[in-house]
């Protein structure tokens, strides 16, 4: 793998205060890089810099190893695709909108028609071809905006929270479709979002951007499972993330196999599908090793305590059950149970507390 897009030594300031301060970020050819962070972290600014639509105060963007000079910006922008939060369609027909970028590139009429129709079809909006764009619903408009970007057959696709303004069912459906389109086309993509689920579903790698700085970049399991600092941990919230695959699914009850363990969760996912098994530390209950009382928690794992970190009134416990499992309990419980490092405990959590993300 080689970096198709790279940022070095980047600084963007607004009214003297830094909005973005990134030493280095590389986007590898063919990958989907999900950039996550809370609102105001500088995510959209980063995307504008990557699209050469905002000139940074300092730093350089490299495309396929070469710095993008001012006179090459148009050529560069004709090799990428851009989808922003709002669909920003022109007040013309859906066809004209999807054709817009191809017309800017002065492609022959025939080629334009063929590509537009292909992508209208792949995004399921062929029926809306001649409809005025302003009469579309939010979901339809964002489909048109995606078709407009995909039709360009870009070398890099830049997506800035394209689904954040949509209602939940529409968003879920579009997200699934985008996921399969990105797999089918294997276009290098930078996907900006504040939504962890979106990042986990789409991202081959995840970059966490907080207050204009990149805190961690890596595979989702690493970023979510072992945050490098408390800020990332606090932002990602979900701390236990492990790879697994579905071995059974019946009446909404899913059995996932991971690290040789059988774990229970709730959902509807086909058997054999790889999933990410996510668990929040506050959903884990710790019991003494010997003779645990029965409870409604369907999952019970035996492990030994690797580390206890005190966080105010809480204690953050890392348990080694074949994989690191995080638990957050009160300091009082930790004291009463006499929890110390290397002690063996049972970690219990309800199937309904588990969050499965299909991959």
């Amino acid at each position: 793998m080689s970096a198709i897009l790279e940022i070095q030594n980047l600084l963007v300031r607004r009214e003297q205060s830094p909005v973005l301060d990134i030493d280095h970020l590389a986007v590898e050819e063919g990958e989907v890089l999900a950039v996550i962070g809370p609102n105001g972290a500088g995510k959209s600014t980063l995307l504008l810099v990557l699209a050469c639509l905002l000139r940074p105060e300092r730093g350089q963007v490299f495309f396929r190893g070469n710095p993008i000079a001012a006179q090459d910006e148009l050529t560069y922008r004709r090799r990428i695709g851009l989808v922003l939060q709002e669909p920003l369609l022109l007040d013309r027909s859906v066809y004209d909108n999807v054709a817009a970028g191809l017309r800017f590139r002065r492609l022959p009429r025939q080629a334009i028609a063929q590509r537009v129709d292909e992508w209208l079809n792949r995004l399921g909006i062929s029926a809306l071809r001649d409809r005025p764009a302003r009469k579309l619903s939010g979901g339809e408009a964002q489909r048109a905006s995606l078709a407009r970007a995909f039709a360009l057959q870009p070398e890099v696709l830049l997506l800035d929270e394209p689904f954040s303004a949509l209602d939940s069912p529409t968003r879920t459906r579009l997200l699934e479709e985008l996921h399969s389109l990105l797999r089918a086309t294997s276009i290098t993509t930078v996907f900006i979002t504040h939504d962890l689920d979106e990042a986990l579903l789409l991202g081959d790698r995840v970059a966490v951007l907080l207050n204009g700085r990149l805190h961690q970049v890596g595979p989702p399991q690493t970023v979510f499972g072992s945050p490098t600092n408390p800020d990332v941990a606090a932002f990602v919230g979900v701390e236990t993330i492990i790879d697994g695959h579905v071995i059974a699914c019946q009446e909404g009850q899913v059995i996932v196999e991971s690290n040789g363990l059988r774990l229970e969760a709730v959902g509807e996912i086909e058997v054999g599908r790889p999933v990410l098994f996510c668990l929040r530390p506050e959903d884990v209950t710790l019991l003494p090793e010997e003779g645990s009382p029965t409870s409604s928690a369907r999952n019970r794992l035996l492990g030994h305590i690797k580390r206890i970190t005190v966080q105010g009134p809480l204690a953050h416990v890392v348990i080694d059950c074949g994989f690191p499992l995080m638990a957050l309990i009160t300091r009082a419980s930790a004291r009463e149970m006499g929890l110390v490092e290397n002690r063996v405990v049972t970690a219990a959590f309800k199937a309904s507390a588990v969050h499965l993300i299909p991959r």
Partner: protein
Amino acid sequence: MLQHALALLFGGDPEVWQITLLSLEVSGLATCISLLIGLPIGTWLALMHFRGRGFLLSLVNTGMALPPVVVGLVVSILLWRSGPLGDLHLIYTPAAIVIAQTIIAAPVVTGLTAAALQQLNPRLRLQLLGLGASRSQTVLALWQEARLPLLAALMAGFGSVISEVGASMMVGGNIRYQTRVLTTAIVLETGKGEFASAIVLSVLLLVLALLVNFALTWIQQHGVRR
């Protein structure tokens, strides 16, 4: 009087038609020149960010309310035989009226063009550039996006000059067969007490203004339906 007026209107008096045609030519030309000046300047004011932009915009907006007689005075001074541009011998010619009317209409077109483009979502420009549009392709797409308010700017520009009398009178001189336009003719006929001809000319002026506006409104509606 009414009979006389009807006879003039439908009798095909060649002088009436000559005056009407001249009005249309002069004001039409002035509007076209205003568009050539106002569209680029208005676009530049709307899209570029530079120091003094706000000041220039308010200057243009003030210019939209320029009193025609003041414009007439300034153009007269400039074009007067002994004036700085006297050697061009333009005073009391249709060209002088075109110049004066252009000065009146240009700020209107400029100001409304700027307003039309500023109403667009500022992120649309980023999206167009992101789709690979060059600078000129971006501007063309933005004009197309704002086509309805831009057409309104053109209508307002034409409206401001076709009905203007002060400047035309001062720089044109209301010379029969040469610089007499509808508005100056109406002033003259009314002054003479020839109400019948004044009414005929007024009706023609109204019809002209209405026709042009109907035509542009039709284009607007057509544009919406498309």
